[in-house]
C-alpha cells in the first residue's frame, strides 16, 4: 500500500470543524509544513489537541493567531499571549489539562483503554465534575480517553511504510498521537526507503501511519 502523498492530497482530508491532534512541544516536533498549508487553506473551527499553543510565530500558535481554532485542549498556553486574549474575549474555548494526564488520555485512546486513573489534580479545580475512585486508601481521578479525527505528526526520518525515527526532544507527544486518531498523517523531514531505518530504531511502527508527506512534497 502506497502511503506517500503530496501535501495537498494529504491535507484535503482536513475539513472545517474537525478535531485535530498536533504533535510537538512548544513547536519542537511540530509538523510546521502542515501548519503552513492549513493556514493557506484557512481551515476553520478546528478543535486542536496538543501539549501547548506554542508561540505566536511557531507551532500550533500560528493557527491560533490566524483564528482557525474554536477550541484547544492543551496543558499550557502561557507562551502565546494570543491564546489568552482570545480566551478572555470569548472567541476561543480553552481546556487546560495536566501534561501527564493529557499524554495518558491520548495514549489510552490509542491503547484501547477506558480511561486512566491518576492522582494528579486531586484537591484542585481539575477534579471538578470528574469521577473519583479510592484505591488502597488513595484518591484518584478518572480521566477519559482523548481521540481525534486526524493526528498531524512529525518525524525526523520516515520510511515509505511509515516507520518513524524521531530526533532528540522532538519525540514528545508524536508517538502517542500516532495511535489515537482515525487518520494519521506524518510529515517526514527526511523520507527514506524501507530498510533504511533499522527495526531497532523504529520509535513509531508504520502500522499506525496512514499517510506520509515527504520532506520535499
Amino acid at each position: 500500500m502506497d502511503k506517500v502523498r503530496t501535501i495537498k492530497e494529504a491535507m484535503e482530508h482536513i475539513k472545517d470543524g474537525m478535531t485535530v491532534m498536533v504533535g510537538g512541544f512548544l513547536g519542537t516536533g511540530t509538523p510546521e509544513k502542515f501548519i503552513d498549508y492549513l493556514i493557506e487553506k484557512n481551515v476553520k473551527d478546528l478543535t486542536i489537541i496538543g501539549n501547548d499553543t506554542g508561540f505566536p510565530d511557531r507551532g500550533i500558535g500560528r493557527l491560533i493567531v490566524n483564528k482557525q481554532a474554536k477550541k484547544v485542549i492543551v496543558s499550557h498556553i502561557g507562551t502565546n499571549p494570543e491564546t489568552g486574549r482570545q480566551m478572555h474575549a470569548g472567541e476561543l474555548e480553552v481546556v487546560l489539562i495536566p501534561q501527564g494526564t493529557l499524554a495518558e488520555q491520548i495514549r489510552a485512546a490509542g491503547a484501547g483503554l477506558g480511561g486512566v486513573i491518576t492522582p494528579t489534580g486531586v484537591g484542585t479545580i481539575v477534579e471538578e465534575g470528574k469521577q473519583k475512585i479510592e484505591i488502597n486508601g488513595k484518591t484518584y481521578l478518572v480521566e477519559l480517553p482523548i481521540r481525534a479525527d486526524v493526528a498531524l505528526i512529525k518525524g525526523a526520518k520516515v520510511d515509505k511504510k511509515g516507520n518513524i525515527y524521531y530526533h532528540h526532544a522532538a519525540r514528545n507527544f508524536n508517538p502517542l498521537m500516532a495511535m489515537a486518531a482515525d487518520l494519521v498523517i506524518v510529515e517526514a523531514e527526511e523520507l527514506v526507503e524501507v530498510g533504511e531505518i533499522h527495526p531497532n530504531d523504529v520509535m513509531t511502527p508504520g502500522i499506525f501511519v496512514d499517510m506520509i508527506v515527504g520532506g520535499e512534497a
Partner: protein
Amino acid sequence: MGNVREIIAKRVAQELKDGDVVNLGIGLPTLVANYVPEGIDIILQSENGFVGMGPQAEAGKEIKDLVNAGGVSVTLQPGAAFFDSAMSFAIIRGGHVDATVLGALQVDQKGNLANWMIPGKMVPGMGGAMDLVSGAKKVIVAMEHTAKGTPKILKECTLPLTAAGEVDMIVTEMGVMVVTKEGLILTEIHPDYTVEDVKAATEADLIISPDLKMMSVSD
C-alpha cells in the same frame, strides 16, 4: 545580603544527593543546577522528554530539537536518554523523580501550592507542574519570601491549587521552612534576618524550631 536568587539556589542545591533525578522549574529553580556541590552528580529530567540535561547551549552552538521545557536550547550530559511524553510523566508521576524544585505564587502551612493561575488575570496553564508536585518524592518551593512585601507563605492559599498537601520544603532568601504534620517549621534563618523579620513577612503560623540554624549559603 548578596544576590537573593543566588542565595536561594545555593541553599536548594544542598538538598540534592548524589544520583538524584531532579526536575527544575523554569526561572529561579533552573539556577540550582549551577550550585550543585562538587562530587554530587544529579540527573536532570526535562519533562518534554529526556534525562541527562546539561547547561544551556552557547550561542551559535544550539543543537536542533534539543530544548528544555521552556523552549531554551540546552546541552546533554553523557548517558542522556530521550523518550516520549507518556514515559516522561511515568517517570514524574511514578515516583522516579527524587526532587522537584518549583516557584510559587502562594504556598501554605499545610503544604498546598498555587503556581499556575490567577483567575481573570493570568492563566498560563499547569503544564507539567501538577504531575510533578503530585509525583516527585520531594517537593521544594524555591522563591523570594514575599511578592514585593506581600506575603506568599500563607495560612491557606487563596489561588487555585496546583496540588494539595504535597510541598515538603520552602527555601527563600530569609530561611528554610519544612512542612510537617505539626505545621510549618522554620529550621534555618539567613544571618541578615531576625526571627521577628521572618514572622512579619510570613502570614502562615510559623513554628520556630528549637534547633534553629543559620542558613549556610557561603559556598
